């Protein structure tokens, strides 16, 4: 841990506070009991998913407009981490659903659109994996990311448009929860967004180094060709 990455130091206390609020400080749910506590990370991870895929969309559009590969790296890093967090949302949702609804999985609109989102972005990551040329990969994945993002607003609105059994927490009337639960929810959100930011930094650095290495390889290859005549 170098001094220049000082901004990640508060992560540990923030995460500890979030865990404390989730597991000990917040009250049990009136009906669901302690199983409600999984909600805080579930909601936080869902927020991260929304933020991550939105960053992917914005970076993809920015790439199409500016043609700077740094935007493509932002899109790639954000989509990767977003997919991991979508998996987190799905797993925590499955566990909670078992406790609250008595089934692991049900083909509810919200659950279905979320799992579709996960599959589409998994396809996006495969497309990235299987393309060789950096410019082409950036272009194609930007196009696919824009197509894939269509599902995000649908996923968000699924519980509001159709009669889903998935609970809606934040409504136009405010937040339907006890005050302590609201505090725990927002702290969890902040902690997980912090986690997302750190992972973004890690991935962006690695992707930058990868691109630089490819550049060096190309230049070495050319230099050798020149030597050979």
């Amino acid at each position, binding site marked *: 841990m170098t001094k*220049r990455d000082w901004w990640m130091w508060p992560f540990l206390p923030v995460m500890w506070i979030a865990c404390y609020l989730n*597991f000990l400080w917040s009250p049990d749910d009136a009906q669901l009991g*302690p199983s409600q506590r999984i909600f805080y990370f579930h909601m936080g991870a869902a927020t991260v998913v929304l933020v991550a895929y939105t960053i992917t969309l914005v970076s993809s559009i920015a790439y199409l407009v500016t*043609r700077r590969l740094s935007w493509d790296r932002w899109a790639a890093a954000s989509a990767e981490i977003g997919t991991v967090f979508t998996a987190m949302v799905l797993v925590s949702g499955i566990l909670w659903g078992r406790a609250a609804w008595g089934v692991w999985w049900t083909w509810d609109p919200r659950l279905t659109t979320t799992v579709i989102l996960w599959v589409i972005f998994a396809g996006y990551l495969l497309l990235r994996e299987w393309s060789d040329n950096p410019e082409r990969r950036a272009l194609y994945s930007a196009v696919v990311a824009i197509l894939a993002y269509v599902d995000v607003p649908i996923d968000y609105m699924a519980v509001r448009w159709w009669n889903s059994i998935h609970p809606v927490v934040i409504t136009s009337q405010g937040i339907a929860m006890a005050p302590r639960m609201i505090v725990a929810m927002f702290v969890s959100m902040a902690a997980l967004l912090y986690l997302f930011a750190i992972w973004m930094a*890690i991935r962006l650095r690695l992707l930058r*180094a990868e691109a630089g290495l490819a550049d*060096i390889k190309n230049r070495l290859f050319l230099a050798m060709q020149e030597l050979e005549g």
Partner: protein
Amino acid sequence: MTMSAVERMYLLFLFLAYAALMVVMFGFMGRMLRKGRDLEREVERLQAELGERAAPKAPPAVTPTVPGREVGHS
């Protein structure tokens, strides 16, 4: 639904387990950040060493496609 004292204790254990997990994750992330920074510095150094010769215009065989607006594909 109320919890027994034992169940309360389980919650405490859960909290401790997660707190410990976060320590591990924090260490891992710090390590990755540092390594990423080192790697970037190395790459920059290599690029600077190579950069003394002006970056040659790549022939199509090495980089089959060129950025920017162009008709066609390869």
